[in-house]
């Protein structure tokens, strides 16, 4: 299951849909809590069905053994009239379960009809139906039920089922309506409508199957609620008190003063049975909840222990030094000869841990980021580039885990720190002060309930506790001004800003503490081209002015070539090529880079034919042996399947400083010749 989480974290691909629905439902049973819930419910159902055959006595038969405690003859004791409590419980299970399941069936049918109709038909019908549902939802149901039941005295179980249905359908209808609304806009439903399929068929074939989980949850919830309601009504004497149900037992116990006589065996079993059955149904429902909401499933894995274990290897603690931030030397333009490394990553390996094993999302990646450099990291989704970005800042969440490697940060004053060895307090201090992040989607990365100004300010409050409020306010305005947001927008909420402005606000937050490094994870992907250009130009201008280094992550290679000093290409969790941008563009060395460059038009430069790469990005769980790219590589040969290529210097003229991980560049002459003469495949 964690693998699904990994896959989801890496790519938004719905990994769930690949397995058959029947198997998915079976997976529900794998959780021990859900399984025990199902078993308990089944036991109750079976007992209710076979009650007449296994009851030791007639539940209404009176005897001389009155108010006797539990014994061999009466396992659960007897009542005031000498009736057997166990037999009453068994018969009671029948009535209670009948009401519970009957009411749940009727209620669910009604909610599905109303909810799906409202959601699918839309327009005025929807308005009226959802208004009706909302009205019923806020009406207090138990008083209404009591009154209705009082008007229908002695109507038996059927009357109570009807009453519960009337008062209980609204919740399910509302949830299903919302679901239908969102399903109706999905591609497969749109497609079915375009082909002129009749409405009822679309609803039955395309919409309902996708709502099974929600319908099941609402059904089980109603069973519990109905059993509780029936028990309440029976206890109040508003149901037929001559028909045995758990509520009726409690009614007779109450009127028979079981409490005062201390006959606990009379009133304990019935309530306990309701509670146990209710708990079991809730456990099944939790299972369904986790099934619907994968994030809840990850909660089980995201334990504290795992969080502590995020960095596996124990390492010597660096001493904490808290020195005043050294003012950065005036920004000098970056050159490829620079050796002033600000962030050194060595053999970094990030794995997703699951019951089934460990999946390597980032595989022994090394690079050096120099002061003032823009390092571009390119790769398809699933190549591990975002995982890498999070790992650098230790923001990765379980089940992701840094298995090995080193991340070393060097401050402007020459002081070095081991990022992976920091404890929580040191990490908090390091974060944003030295390294900040701009997330992919500002829409999701900004807190929706906090004003923009406050979201900038709280960084300053956390890291510069001594700064006075007016000074802070001035800094917020200054930052907004730097990224070109009008000052009065400081008091706006994220949803009130346009997409471009939100992204600029993100950048303003990133600049708040004047960090040495800014990691940008696809900062412009969600924006249109014009805004994208504005933002990029802003970033480059700020970089030149303020002199920070940038790790820029994107799948947009043409953009990357334009703005990066150095480019690293990732494939299957590995860096397969790293080169100065200029060299990379002119002489890409790895076949994958060549393919990537062939599939993107560049904004400037000569015209050329677009080619692209065959196949799709690899599944990290099942990487091909040897070179991960070989299955899609036009130049693959035998050795590629057995030998993992290392990232090595490529010694061709004109490509000084290029590193590539490809056997084409490291195998003996003969193989290269062989390749030159003909394909080996």
């Amino acid at each position: 299951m964690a693998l699904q989480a990994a896959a989801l974290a890496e790519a938004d691909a719905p990994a769930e849909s690949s397995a058959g629905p029947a198997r998915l439902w079976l997976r529900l049973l794998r959780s021990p809590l859900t399984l025990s819930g199902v078993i308990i419910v089944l036991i109750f159902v079976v007992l209710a069905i076979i009650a007449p055959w296994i009851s030791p006595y007639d539940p209404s038969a009176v005897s001389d053994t009155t108010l006797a405690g539990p014994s061999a003859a009466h396992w659960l004791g007897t009542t005031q009239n000498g009736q057997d409590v166990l037999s009453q419980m068994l018969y009671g299970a029948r009535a209670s379960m009948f009401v519970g399941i009957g009411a749940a069936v009727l209620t669910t049918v009604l909610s599905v009809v109303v909810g799906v109709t409202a959601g699918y038909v839309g327009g005025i019908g929807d308005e009226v139906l959802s208004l009706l549902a909302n009205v019923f939802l806020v009406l207090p149901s138990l008083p209404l039920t009591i009154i209705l039941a009082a008007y229908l005295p002695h109507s038996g179980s059927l009357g109570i089922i009807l009453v519960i249905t009337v008062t209980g359908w609204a919740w399910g209808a509302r949830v299903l309506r919302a679901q239908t609304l969102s399903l109706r806009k999905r591609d497969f439903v749109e497609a079915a409508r375009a082909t002129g399929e009749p409405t009822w068929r679309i609803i039955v074939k395309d919409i309902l199957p996708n709502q099974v989980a929600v319908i099941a949850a609402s059904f089980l919830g109603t069973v519990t609620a109905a059993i509780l309601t029936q028990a309440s009504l029976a206890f109040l004497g508003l149901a037929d008190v001559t028909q045995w149900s758990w509520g009726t037992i409690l009614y007779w116990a109450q009127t028979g003063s079981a409490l005062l006589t201390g006959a606990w065996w009379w009133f304990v079993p019935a309530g306990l049975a309701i509670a146990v059955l209710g708990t079991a149904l809730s456990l099944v429902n939790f299972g369904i909840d986790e099934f619907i909401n994968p994030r809840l499933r990850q909660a089980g894995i995201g334990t504290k222990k795992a969080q502590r274990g995020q960095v596996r290897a124990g390492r010597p603690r660096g001493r904490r030094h808290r020195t005043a931030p050294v003012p950065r030397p005036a920004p000098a333009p970056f050159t490829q000869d620079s050796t002033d490394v600000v962030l050194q990553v060595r053999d970094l390996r990030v794995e997703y841990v699951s019951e089934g094993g460990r999946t390597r999302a980032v595989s022994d990646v090394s690079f050096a980021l120099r002061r003032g450099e823009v390092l571009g990291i390119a790769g398809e989704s699933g190549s591990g580039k975002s995982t890498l970005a999070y790992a650098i800042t230790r923001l990765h969440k379980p089940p992701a885990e840094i298995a090995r490697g080193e991340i070393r940060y060097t401050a402007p004053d020459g002081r070095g720190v081991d990022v992976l060895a920091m404890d929580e307090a040191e990490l908090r201090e390091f974060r944003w002060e030295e390294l900040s992040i701009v997330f992919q989607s500002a829409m999701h990365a900004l807190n929706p309930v906090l004003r923009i100004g406050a979201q900038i300010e709280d960084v300053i409050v956390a890291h510069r506790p001594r700064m006075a409020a007016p000074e802070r306010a001035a800094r917020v305005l200054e930052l907004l001004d730097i990224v070109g947001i009008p000052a009065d927008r400081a008091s706006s909420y994220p949803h009130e800003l346009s997409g471009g402005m939100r992204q600029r606000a993100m950048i303003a937050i990133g600049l708040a503490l004047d960090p040495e490094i800014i990691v940008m994870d696809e900062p412009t992907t969600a924006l249109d081209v014009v805004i994208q250009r504005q933002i990029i130009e802003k970033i480059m201008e700020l970089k030149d002015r303020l002199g920070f280094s940038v790790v820029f992550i994107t799948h947009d290679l043409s953009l990357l070539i334009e703005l990066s000093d150095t480019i690293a290409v990732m494939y299957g969790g590995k860096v397969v090529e790293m080169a100065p941008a200029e060299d990379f563009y002119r002489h890409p060395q790895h076949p994958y880079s060549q393919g990537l460059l062939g599939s993107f038009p560049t904004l400037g430069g000569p015209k050329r034919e677009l080619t692209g790469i065959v196949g799709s990005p690899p599944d990290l769980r099942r990487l091909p042996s040897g070179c991960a790219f070989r299955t899609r590589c036009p130049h693959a040969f035998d050795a590629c399947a057995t030998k993992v290529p290392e990232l090595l210097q490529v010694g061709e003229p004109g490509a000084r400083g290029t590193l590539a991980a490809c056997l084409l560049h490291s195998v003996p002459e003969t193989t290269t010749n062989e390749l030159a003469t003909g394909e080996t495949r």
Partner: protein
Amino acid sequence: MRTILRKVFFYLLTAWAAISLNFLIPRIMPGNPADNLINQFHGKLSPSAVHALRVLFGQSDQNLWQQYLSYWHSVFTGNFGTSYAYYPSKVSTVLGQSMYWTLILVTICTVLGFVIGTALGMLAGWKRGSWLDSLVPVTTFLSSIPYFWFAIIMVYLFAITFKWFPLSGGYALDQHIGLNAGFITSALNYAVLPAATITVASIGGWLIGMRNMMVTTLSEDYVRLAEAKGLSRRRVMYTYAARNAMLPSLSGFAMSLGFVIGGSIVTEVVFNYPGIGSVLFKAAQSADYPLMSAIFLLITVLVLLANLVADLAYVFLDPRTRES
């Protein structure tokens, strides 16, 4: 502002629907409850009471529309006629005596249950995987227990076995109702068990909902960004995670409130607490229809008001709802 107006309009509409429903129910019910009731009193009812009863069941010479209008008149004047369960008291008098007991008890318990449940749910979500996770099955069990049965157990344990608290009622009979220390102490003492029952039984629902929302919220990008910003743990937990996670709890307030109120009504019966629940129970047993429909109206209006308050709080807490 427009959002608030729309909310107010919705609740007015709901109130209208509930009040009209209350008018309709006696008229569409099968059988002849009015005659049954009149026969029960063996002619001891005053002619005006008999007339009122026939009006309630729509057996007057007026047409439906006129009946509806005079029904509304009685709603606004608070004139719900005579109670049969408490004959010859007026319905309004009976309600006036009992409603404050329920109002105070349920308000305090609802607020307590919400605050404690949400706070524990926040912690359980934040520290998921720690011992706090064991709260989930425990509270699931607690919230599956019928309120009234839980009340029975509380009475059995703390009133009968340990004799820590009084068995039933709202105050010691030797006290006089009023703002004097003796009465207030006595009322508090009598309220402990009912309040504990309702609060404990209602915590579970809030806790589980909040925990699950917290877990969902913790994987949001804005929480990750808050961590990346190096903010303090408290700031991340309260302002970024919990602040967003509690919004669905609030918007689901209506349904939960209905549940708590329903449970409280039956709980009152067990404790013989002098509130609306006990009155409704007595009314239902003696088929006191005027009293029942007045109680239904009263509870509905109070629930609608509580929901309006919750909705306003929601508008205040979630800036996204403030426009459009």
